[in-house]
């Protein structure tokens, strides 16, 4: 008897249509995902790693995710949760935060101190702020995306904003002090 696949019953054959669809989707969404990854992680290396890992997972679940018609939601949720779950102390993340492979020119915006201060927040607090102020999600939506309660979203956001106040200098933006 001929058997396709392996002893586990899984086939490793390529799925041409799925791969084509997947690649089209990635090409169209990659810039936005990298922007999202960048504000989540704060540095280009980790953003690239995070997007890559989420896309690999998306590929593994592509058919199932397509049936639900929300690959974007799947990837962004995976990225947020994956980033938070990376609880390992980030000595080296801090170290390499400003060392991209290629020359990297930030525009040095007036809110730079806030951006720098985001790097001092625990990952979950940063993720809550990113989802609230970059993704413009409601607290209920943030709770669902991070698999936490709405109360935790609020308390994490409150603590994070408290910390950012230390670095917030409205003076630099033209506001009277």
């Amino acid at each position, binding site marked *: 008897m001929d058997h396709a696949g392996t002893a586990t019953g899984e086939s490793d054959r390529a799925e041409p249509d799925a791969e084509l669809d997947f690649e089209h989707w990635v090409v169209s969404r990659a810039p936005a995902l*990298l922007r999202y990854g960048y504000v989540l992680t704060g540095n280009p290396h980790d953003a690239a790693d995070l997007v890559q890992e989420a896309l690999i997972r998306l590929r593994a679940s592509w058919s199932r995710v397509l049936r639900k018609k929300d690959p974007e939601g799947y990837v962004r949720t995976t990225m947020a949760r994956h980033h938070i779950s*990376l609880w*390992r102390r980030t000595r080296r993340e801090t170290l390499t935060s400003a060392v991209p492979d290629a020359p990297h020119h930030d525009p040095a915006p007036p809110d*730079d101190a806030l951006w720098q201060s985001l790097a001092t927040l625990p990952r979950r607090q940063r993720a809550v702020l990113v989802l609230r102020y970059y993704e413009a999600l409601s607290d209920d939506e943030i709770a669902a995306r991070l698999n936490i309660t709405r109360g935790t979203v609020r308390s994490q956001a409150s603590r994070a*904003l408290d910390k950012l106040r230390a670095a917030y200098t*409205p003076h630099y933006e033209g506001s009277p002090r």
Partner: protein
Amino acid sequence: MTPPRSPLEQSLTRSLHTHAESAPTPPPTLATQAQQTWHHRRRRRLAALSAATAAAVVLGTFGALHRDGPEPAPTVLTPAPAVPLDELWPDAVHRVPRTLPDGVRITPLAMLDRHTVVAASWAPVPDDWGGEGVTQPKALYAYDIRTRKATKVTDFHQPKRHSTTSSRIVAGDGYVAWQADHWDTDDSVVFARPVTPGPPEHRWKVSGSPHSLTLVNGRAIWASGRDAPPALSAAALADGSVRVHRGGVREIVLGWPWVTEADIPSHGDAAGRPFFGQRIRNVETGEVRGTALTAPASAGAACGVVWCSLGADMVRRDGSARLVGATAHHPTGSSGTEEHTEYTYGGTLPEADHFLVLRPTGPDDPEEVRDRLRIIDLETGRVGEAVVPLAEYVYNSPDSDTIVYRTGEGFTVIDLAALR
């Protein structure tokens, strides 16, 4: 959407969107890379399962993977069925209360030794313009897990316009040390004192964004070098004297006395360019070690002193052992049933160069799966498991030897050093 309500929130929104435009440009091969990595992982997993079956490898033990060719075959390890953490490692799992008898709330930070947890109480510190400011340590405590009593070690000291985080507080060698960073400059102050009541015994002013603060062999060690000459500093805890070793590149302490270059890509690539941890240096002896992983097999690799991560696999630096499929398809339960949950490990490298700490992260994971915390001992393949909701803050100490999460009214502290 929650609309911005304050100038701070408006500035934050603007800052995030402005900086998002500085995100890296996606490489043209991004989709192809994801496809290939997915295929590669799948093939490796399936091959590992086949090899394990063919070699009649007993789960949880080492077996030999026989290959053609002259090089010695690596030992192949597969994860054992998961068992509860506190059953597997009862001497390493500790409970610490959140509130002391006098009402002070503490957070465990690190293990000083096998029976003492260093913890901190916290309080908001006003900022320069009358705001509530940031939450900072108020005092440090030593909690004895045998007597269940806490002793206040010291009120927390740091200069004005400085702040610290839990990751800047370390314990070891009978001492606790902490690093306070200036808000506006790359200057910091490092404090240290024995874990007995009293004020800080040492205070060192440091420039160049110090990091990797470690207490070992009677010294406080740190590295520095952002916008300053790269250096490794060793301060004697006995007399406070500091020896500074200047180097040509910024280095990071992987596990004293081993260091590696800091400013290097996280992972290897197929072209064989240098990657994090590929070359390590023993500061005390000058010994330099490479790794048996060479391109293209090193694509995706990052190395600690002993173990390298390679996607879902963990490989010893010298190539002598390999744990396959660590992040997927663990056997589970006493029957060792295969399951299809993808796990992820934190950061780039195994914790304490010995353990893989895993969480499932798939949005579609069923409820009974998604709160799992699994720790794999890379040397034995044993797998400990706990249920830790994502909402319960999980973190580890800067030296990666301690994992902490909330349980009920207190904390669970896992002392990884006790498992070695």
